[in-house]
């Protein structure tokens, strides 16, 4: 039985190792794909885990950890570990469950695997293992925290090892829960939905994490308020309803909670039941099969409308739009508008380049169909330039105006708006140029641009941002420099950068034109 599984695993990892096509690992991967896959999973665990553990444990005073909090019998270490584990558990479940569903559906080999004489549980297990490397860092941290707890409450190496073992048991339970959820969800979700849910859940979990970090930080409340809040928080987190509490109690020497191990062994039976006849293949949901109504919304800009729709549905779009604004807002309203603007421009410049790449990729995936539309090639590209330029540019303008009205009425805030708009516009053209140099790109977003291309984009973005916005602000603030430097920094640098960007853009437009002409013969 298990032999089947290892055969499956071997060929699956062979496939993975090949498709990574990294020169460095080339030889290694072909000689032993299983080893390669294991290394790729374990390497980050070891590389992150060991230093992380030492940093973590060395910064914490064990004496303090064992002190009992003024409410109940909870020690500081219990609160600390519980809060970390519960956060991580939630993040893990949120991000891994849709990922599993997506991997089940997305795998092009599923149809083939289902024809093989192997058990469905094995196929599911294979798919889980394939997607495991994505969450290996979260996993490492989870296990390490258990090891840390074992070390603190039991003491010594034995405690460490027990903690490690219990951590693995807990992790297996989490994995089983997310597989179970995935198995259930896969009955309701189609592939497209699963993919979108997967990415949205991932970013929501990042947001939640940021929020938690910010709420736990004592704010301007009175000391008593903080204490009261902490009390509720502690009660909630150390409640025995949480599965992780059972496992922590085991380490604490409470044998009753060994019963917590039972579900770890029971779970596979449940999962096997649920997936007994699942087909893992995506099917259109029957609910949607209602007779479509043929209402028809006219549009004078169908290409723009379609691109906006596609962009909106790009799983990363929400994140790309939210992240730079959140970062910029945090910095700007903490009284560091320059850092805020520079960070914003650096991030959005890159995102603008990636966005246009993403949108162009949609057309390339259906090539040559877009060539049959009754429009010129340029008309296909223009909406793709407009979307990132205005999406990010208008956002920045709003942010800057808000800052100008609420806080600082310096003219530079307003002057920065057209500058930022020009930077983003140039970055969009840069992105288009780089993408069109080789329009046949990987379907996978992760591999759409190669590292060199990313680096080039970042270099351009940073020079443009520093030259036009960064240097002038710095020189305005600096009091004690000679007049000459001031003129250079405040006027010459932005003027020069603006001229550079304008020339770059004109040149880029020409080159994109020739690239499009060549693409006509694809």
């Amino acid at each position: 039985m298990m032999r089947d599984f290892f055969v499956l695993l071997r060929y699956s990892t062979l496939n993975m190792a090949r498709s990574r096509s990294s020169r460095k690992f080339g030889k290694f991967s072909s000689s032993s794909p299983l080893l390669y896959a294991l290394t790729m999973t374990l390497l980050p665990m070891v590389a992150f885990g060991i230093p992380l553990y030492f940093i973590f444990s060395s910064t914490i005073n064990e004496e303090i950890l064992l002190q009992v909090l003024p409410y109940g019998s909870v020690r500081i270490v219990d609160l600390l570990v519980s809060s970390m584990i519960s956060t991580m558990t939630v993040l893990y479940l949120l991000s891994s469950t849709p990922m599993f569903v997506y991997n089940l559906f997305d795998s092009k080999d599923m149809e083939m695997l289902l024809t093989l004489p192997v058990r469905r549980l094995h196929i599911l297990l294979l798919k889980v293992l394939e997607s495991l490397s994505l969450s290996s860092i979260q996993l490492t941290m989870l296990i390490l925290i258990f090891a840390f707890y074992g070390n603190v409450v039991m003491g010594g190496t034995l405690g460490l090892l027990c903690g490690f073992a219990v951590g693995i048991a807990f992790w297996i339970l989490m994995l089983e829960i997310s597989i179970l959820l995935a198995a259930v969800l896969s009955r309701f979700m189609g592939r497209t939905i699963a993919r979108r849910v997967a990415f949205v859940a991932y970013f929501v979990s990042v947001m939640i994490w940021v929020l938690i970090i910010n709420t736990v930080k004592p704010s301007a409340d009175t000391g008593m308020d903080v204490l009261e809040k902490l009390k509720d928080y502690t009660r909630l987190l150390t409640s025995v309803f949480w599965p992780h509490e059972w496992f922590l109690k085991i380490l604490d020497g409470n044998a009753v909670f060994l019963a917590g191990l039972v579900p770890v062994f029971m779970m596979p039976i449940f999962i096997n039941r649920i997936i007994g006849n699942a087909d893992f293949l995506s099917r259109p949901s029957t609910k949607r099969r209602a007779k479509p109504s043929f209402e028809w919304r006219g549009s004078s800009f169908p290409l723009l409308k379609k691109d906006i729709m596609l962009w909106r549905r790009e799983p990363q779009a929400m994140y790309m739009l939210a992240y730079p604004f959140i970062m910029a807002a945090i910095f700007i309203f903490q009284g560091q508008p320059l850092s805020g603007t520079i960070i914003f421009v650096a991030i959005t410049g890159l995102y603008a380049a990636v966005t246009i790449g993403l949108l162009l990729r949609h057309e390339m995936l259906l090539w040559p169909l877009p060539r049959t539309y009754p429009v010129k090639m340029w008309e296909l590209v223009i909406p793709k330039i407009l979307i990132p330029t205005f999406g990010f540019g208008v956002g920045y303008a709003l942010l800057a105006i808000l800052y100008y009205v609420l806080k600082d009425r310096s003219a530079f805030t307003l002057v920065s708006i057209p500058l930022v708009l020009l930077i983003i516009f140039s970055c969009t053209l840069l992105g288009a140029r780089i993408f069109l140099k080789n329009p046949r790109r990987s379907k996978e977003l992760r591999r759409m641009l190669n590292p060199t291309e990313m680096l080039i984009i970042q270099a351009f973005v940073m020079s443009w941002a520093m030259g036009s916005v960064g240097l002038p602000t710095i020189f305005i603030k600096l009091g004690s420099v000679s007049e000459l430097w001031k003129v250079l920094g405040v006027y010459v640098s932005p003027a020069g950068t603006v001229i550079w960007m304008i020339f770059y853009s004109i040149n880029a437009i020409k080159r994109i034109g020739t690239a499009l002409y060549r693409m006509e013969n694809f």
Partner: protein
Amino acid sequence: MIKARKLRKRFGDLEAVKGIDLTVKPGEIYGFLGPNGAGKTTTIRMLTGSLKPTEGEVEVLGMNMRTHEIEIKRAIGVVPDEPKLYENLRGREYLEFIMNIYRVPRRETLKRLQELCEAFSVDYLNAFIGEYSHGMKQKLVVVSVLMRRPRVIFLDEPTVGLDARSAKILKLLLRKYADEGGSIFMTTHVLEVAERMCDRIGIINKGILIAEGTLEELRKLSKEGHENLEDLFLELTGQGEFDEIINAL
């Protein structure tokens, strides 16, 4: 309605199409028949303006492709060989996009769309295209072309992904459109399809149009006087040595 003169296409060293002349008249279904890799897709892409010929002229509906590319594209319908569509759009949204980009007259198109959806049992327009099967996408493309009712339709291997019922309906519709004065150009590598659907057949092999005519004319043309088209096709495309191969197996 469709005219090509000395059409040539070179991909680097490979010359995929080597000087093809052809004419398709109104009311005619023209079948472009050839083995895999013969240059059918390359030809159809040049005829529809999605590929620039290395040499030669294309004329559709009396307009030259070089000077009136957009006008031609707006007037014709194209069903590509693979139904690749925007996976993140719903079927409904894709159709809306096509209606808007071709600026079709609203009421008739919607009416035709409704009929076509019923005929091809397209009842999944509210789902994302990413969830469609190959055949479902193929049907969506066919519907999106036919709802515009173009006077010239190009189809690249249209029957490949379709079920028997849909293929039959498509066949009947194309016949009807041709009888009403439209021109249809379709490629296929399947003999029966060409035999049953087409008024005139051109046989292409290795980028050269080696024979052309109605079924009758093609039979006459054949020197050995084959009764069925299959033998003729194999003879013309130089693949007649099957007996030897089969015997060797």
